[in-house]
């Protein structure tokens, strides 16, 4: 130890303690989630001169780490697009994940009933400056973990509130994280030399991402947002659900009425759009899907900012649908659950889901045996009962507790620790859920975001023990 210290003294000249720089003693209070261990500094608040270095040196063999960080900057016009993305995601849920990766900065949001998921991925080209890093922990086990940053929508939405005035006044914007304080700092450099700084605390939480293969959908439509916006005007804000009915000859967007609603009091509206209004029109199967209106509005808000056409990918009722915008600079995906009104049809996607889950759990078990720390890949499958009046039932929790009452364990998300979901219990859950008199929403495929690049195509490496032929199609998923 002493040798190390002396070496440090010689390097860079005689020792001069930097008293001006006060080391924050709260560094030691780092959260311990996700298996990330923290350094404990001397709590005297001194700069680690000799003393600090000694303490550090003591732990040198165990903990040398750089925290995960994000640092990006954008110009005034990009702030508006960024703000619109946040506004659109606020329609999905109250929580927002900031997830930097080499593909760019992803903003993710999942609603509490898991029936809607939004992700906007800004490529590095979108920003004037983009730097990110994972936290690297040199340890017995190498762990690479991303910046797991979850923000409350209530904290971040007001910052990007008046986008028009932001567009006019803000010249540039910098966003960076301070992992030591669990804060995201957003700085607006405005005209007249005004600088506005917002510090938003974040929670460490692994974001979820949806695994959904857009190209396997039999129906794809691409339409200018203006047309959809005109359709939206038809419906009142009290309209919860909207039905999209397609045939090879036309597309109909209409208000969807629940059976329990008072039909004699509500207006039923529909709009027929001909195929030539779409930029791309491919209908493989005539179908009618019903989904939540709120999230569609959210997507439209965002599309106004990008002027790019919206692609809609969908299949049969029950299977999730995707609304996406693909631009050079960004990619937005909103995956929405659709109403499945026939229990028999709904059960088949469920079974697909569950078999994936089984495979996933196999993978997790086998990897843990191999000693690898699969911290972040997991599949979560929740299939819900739709309450008669609403798209989102009051609580997913009630469904889970119902499952518990039925004797099967709840399906849980695998977080930092390796979880095991026994295959048999999963199957039991499926049987419980497939009761015929309920209208169900299709499940969403979920996986936690992984920084572990080895597992980009997990299913390819599995030996197939599939129950149905369709499993083969799900061999390679694209993750959003």
């Amino acid at each position, binding site marked *: 130890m002493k040798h190390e210290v002396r070496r440090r003294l010689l390097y860079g000249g005689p020792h001069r303690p930097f008293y001006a720089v006060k080391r924050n003693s709260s560094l030691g209070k780092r959260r311990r989630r996700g298996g990330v261990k923290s350094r404990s500094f001397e709590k005297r608040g001194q700069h680690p001169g000799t003393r600090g270095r000694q303490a550090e040196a003591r732990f040198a063999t165990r903990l040398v780490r750089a925290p995960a960080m994000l640092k990006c900057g954008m110009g005034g016009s990009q702030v508006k697009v960024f703000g619109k993305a946040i506004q659109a995601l606020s329609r999905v849920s109250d929580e927002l994940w900031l997830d930097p990766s080499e593909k760019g900065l992803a903003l993710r949001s999942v609603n509490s009933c898991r029936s809607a998921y939004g992700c906007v991925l800004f490529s590095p080209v979108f920003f004037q400056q983009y730097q990110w890093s994972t936290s690297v922990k040199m340890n017995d086990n190498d762990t690479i973990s991303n910046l797991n940053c979850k923000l409350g929508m209530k904290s971040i939405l007001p910052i990007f509130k008046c986008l028009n005035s932001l567009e006019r006044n803000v010249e540039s914007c910098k966003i960076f994280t301070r992992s030591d304080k669990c804060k995201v700092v957003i700085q607006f450099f405005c005209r007249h030399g005004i600088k506005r700084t917002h510090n938003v605390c974040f929670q460490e939480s692994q974001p979820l991402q949806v695994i959904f293969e857009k190209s396997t959908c039999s129906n794809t439509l691409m339409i200018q947002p203006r047309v959809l916006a*005109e359709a939206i*005007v*038809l419906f*009142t804000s009290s309209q919860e659900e909207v039905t999209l009915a397609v045939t090879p000859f036309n597309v109909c967007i209409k208000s969807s009425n629940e059976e329990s609603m008072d*039909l*004699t*009091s*509500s*207006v*039923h*509206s*529909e*709009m*027929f*759009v*001909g195929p*030539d*209004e779409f930029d791309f029109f491919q209908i493989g199967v005539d179908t009618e899907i019903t989904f939540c209106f709120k999230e569609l509005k959210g997507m439209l808000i965002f599309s106004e900012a990008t002027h790019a056409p919206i692609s809609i990918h969908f299949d049969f009722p029950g299977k999730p649908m995707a609304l996406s915008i693909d631009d050079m600079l960004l990619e937005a995906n909103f995956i929405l659950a659709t109403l499945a009104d026939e229990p028999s049809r709904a059960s088949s996607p469920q079974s697909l889901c569950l078999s994936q889950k089984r495979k996933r759990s196999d993978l997790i078990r086998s990897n843990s045996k191999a000693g690898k720390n699969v911290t972040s890949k997991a599949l979560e499958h929740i299939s819900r009962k739709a309450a008669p009046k609403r798209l989102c039932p009051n609580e997913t929790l009630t469904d889970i507790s119902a499952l518990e009452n039925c004797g099967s364990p709840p399906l849980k998300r695998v977080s930092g620790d390796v979880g095991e979901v026994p295959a048999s219990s999963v199957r039991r859950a499926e049987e419980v859920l497939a009761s015929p008199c309920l209208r169900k929403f299709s499940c969403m495929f979920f996986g936690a975001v992984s920084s572990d690049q080895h597992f980009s195509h997990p299913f390819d490496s599995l030996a197939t023990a599939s129950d149905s032929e369709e499993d083969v199609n799900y061999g390679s998923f694209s993750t959003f």
Partner: protein
Amino acid sequence: MKFRAKIVDAACLNHFTRVSNMIAKLAKTCTLRISPDKLNFILSDKLASGGVSMWCELEQENFFSEFQMEGISAANNEIYLELTSENLSRALKTAQNARALKIKLTNKHYPCLTVSIELLSVSSSSRIVTHDIPVKVIPRRLWKDLQEPTVPDSDVSIYLPVLKTMKSVVEKMKNISNHLIIEANLNGELNLKIETELVCVTTHFKDLGNPPLASENASQARNPEQMAEVHIDIRKLLQFLAGQQANPTKAVCNIVNNKIVHFDLLHEDVSLQYFIPALS
């Protein structure tokens, strides 16, 4: 019972939309009376609206290029429908740049007024929007309550000031008290008064002019300076004023002392009559 009508002219469509917006602001639920030459929007539910009644009349020829109707029977060639006025105005809102608008009475599980709009679109194909507005057919025996109200013999008849000004005055007065006194005389003076324990506020409108009186006797008998007044609920007056978006072609206020105030407006070719009774 049958009803089919079509509007193709953009100006007529906008006018009809404005009328339905006005009705939506004045009454939540109203009755639509369809007769061979007229359309009426009627509010006559004394209990529900607190005594306020409304009669709006428009000549169908001025709006519709095609108009066909068949009433309940040959003798009673009229249709009375009850609907939520906001539904109609919202449906018409989507008809901003429509090529054509069709309204018809349909029965899809329950009676509906189907508004079908053909929208112009950039590409060659036109877009069709349909709204099914649920309505209730009012039976023959209830028709007697929905007839045109008789215009009472008023004590004073006066032209109203600019409605926007009147509305902003009444809006501010609403914060002070719910009880408003409206009074006018044959000298072209109209006053709006609020009286509370702490404060009295009066707004005077002068030089308004009075419409020519029907009978000579009444004009001689009455002192032109004498005010006729009615105590009304300010919220009802405010609701009436809020519904007027444009300044009417003609606006007359008739006051029956301590009984009722009657507003008679003419918006281009649509006549609107609104009755507010005195507070008991």
